[in-house]
């Protein structure tokens, strides 16, 4: 029983860490329209994504487990896509720049040559179509990871403890949010600055060490989580 929890926590945390790499992050330069991506740091956008995902999974507490997992993934995807849509609206109609990035030559979906649209002296602006789709994939993976962790902790608590549903849900929410806080920051230390989704050259260099490190930190944290859950059940 605890072994299943360990495995599902490791899978969930690794999915969160891989998902962070897919999200187009622009950081502070993107807020000045001198770089493509979402105009904030990777930890902040991932924490927002994690909190939305876990809360929308927690809304489905009395449903079957697969509904909780899918609900978490959809919540994260809605949060990220709304953020990217409004960021693009501000960039296009407010600042007056077309979404484009100099990190790749051609957008494979729209077929636009990026070079023609990038302002001189910048690395791009807004969120191009391929980065938008990459962000959707990333939030799907992250949301699924977070809600797998939430669901596994909640199910083991609800079968072994005689607490109310609200108490079990609160404890499971706290633990899965802590997982997001740690793994997302580790992944953003790996990214170091900006990334434009899976079509970017940087993604191919960064994904392997990112996955390994997220697996390592997930294994360490899951051991402590199993200790915590064991203490909760037998305490």
């Amino acid at each position: 029983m605890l072994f299943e929890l360990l495995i599902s926590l490791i899978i969930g945390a690794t999915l969160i860490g891989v998902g962070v790499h897919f999200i187009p992050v622009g950081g502070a330069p993107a807020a000045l329209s001198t770089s493509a991506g979402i105009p904030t740091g990777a930890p902040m956008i991932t924490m927002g994504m994690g909190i939305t995902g876990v809360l929308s999974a927690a809304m489905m507490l009395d449903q079957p487990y697969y509904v909780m997992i899918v609900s978490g993934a959809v919540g994260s995807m809605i949060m990220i896509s709304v953020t990217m849509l409004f960021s693009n609206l501000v960039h296009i109609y407010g600042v007056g720049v077309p979404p484009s990035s100099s990190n790749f030559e051609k957008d494979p979906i729209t077929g636009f040559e990026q070079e023609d649209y990038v302002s001189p002296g910048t690395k791009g602006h807004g969120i191009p179509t391929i980065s938008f789709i990459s962000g959707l994939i990333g939030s799907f993976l992250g949301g699924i990871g977070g809600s797998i962790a939430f669901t596994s902790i909640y199910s083991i608590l609800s079968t072994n403890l005689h607490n109310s549903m609200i108490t079990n849900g609160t404890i499971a929410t706290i633990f899965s949010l802590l997982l997001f806080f740690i793994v997302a920051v580790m992944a953003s230390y790996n990214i170091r600055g900006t990334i434009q989704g899976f079509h970017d050259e940087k993604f191919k260099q960064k994904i392997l060490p990112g996955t390994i490190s997220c697996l390592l930190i997930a294994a360490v944290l899951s051991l402590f989580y199993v200790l915590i859950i064991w203490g909760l059940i037998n305490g």
Partner: protein
Amino acid sequence: MAEDLIPNQIIALVSIIVSTLCIYGSNISVIGGILAMLASVLSTVFGTNTLRHIGEHSLGTGIPSIVYMLSAVGLVSYISALLLSLHYDIPLIFPILSIIFAVIIAAITSWICKYVFDIKVEILTKSFVSIAVASMLLMISLSTLIAQTYYPAVIYETVIENGIILLLLIISVMGIQNPYNSCLGPNEDQYRTLSLSCANAFLMSIVISIVSILNTEYWMVYLLISLICWFVFFRQYIVYTRHQAASIKTHGLWPTHDGDD
């Protein structure tokens, strides 16, 4: 940055030892809450002073994220130590065991940063461990202020089960990272940053002493003490800020080299 007037080692030693002793003393009625407040102030100062050193190096992302991650590490070690001491029914080992767990997890995190991501910062392990321990002590002392004791069974019932612990996590992240983030710059000064962090710690205890209305009838005393101390330290912060602003006005906007006041 100007020379440090109080060395980091002394702050670390004093705040870890005195905070742990204060947490052990939180069982005494009335005085216990004041001791918990003292522990929270010392651990905030410790965390901010460590952040001043690691914040000069570039880690690839912003300063708040370090504190976010290490506070989460501190909270994981806090809860696991709490439940272990609850299971074996030895309340006395709870603060010591959580310090040990925080050191272990923070050290593993920093080794992954060092060897997998290739971040070349010498003080990385030391700073990660220090910030994790500081934020963990801060969260324990705020919880003891709410629960009026350090017994794990009471803390579990009054702080963790109802979700107040998430408020403590966010509040302690803000308290530790805000002073450095708002004072950083070429003429950042230790006294100015640390006086703001003391003011922040008392600002936290204003909120927490109102939350402690559930468990104690002396919450008015704590509220009054933290209000007065917040006023004193924030005034001191404004005095230091004006002093430095005057030095900029007479000597020019940017110092010509490091350490020039």
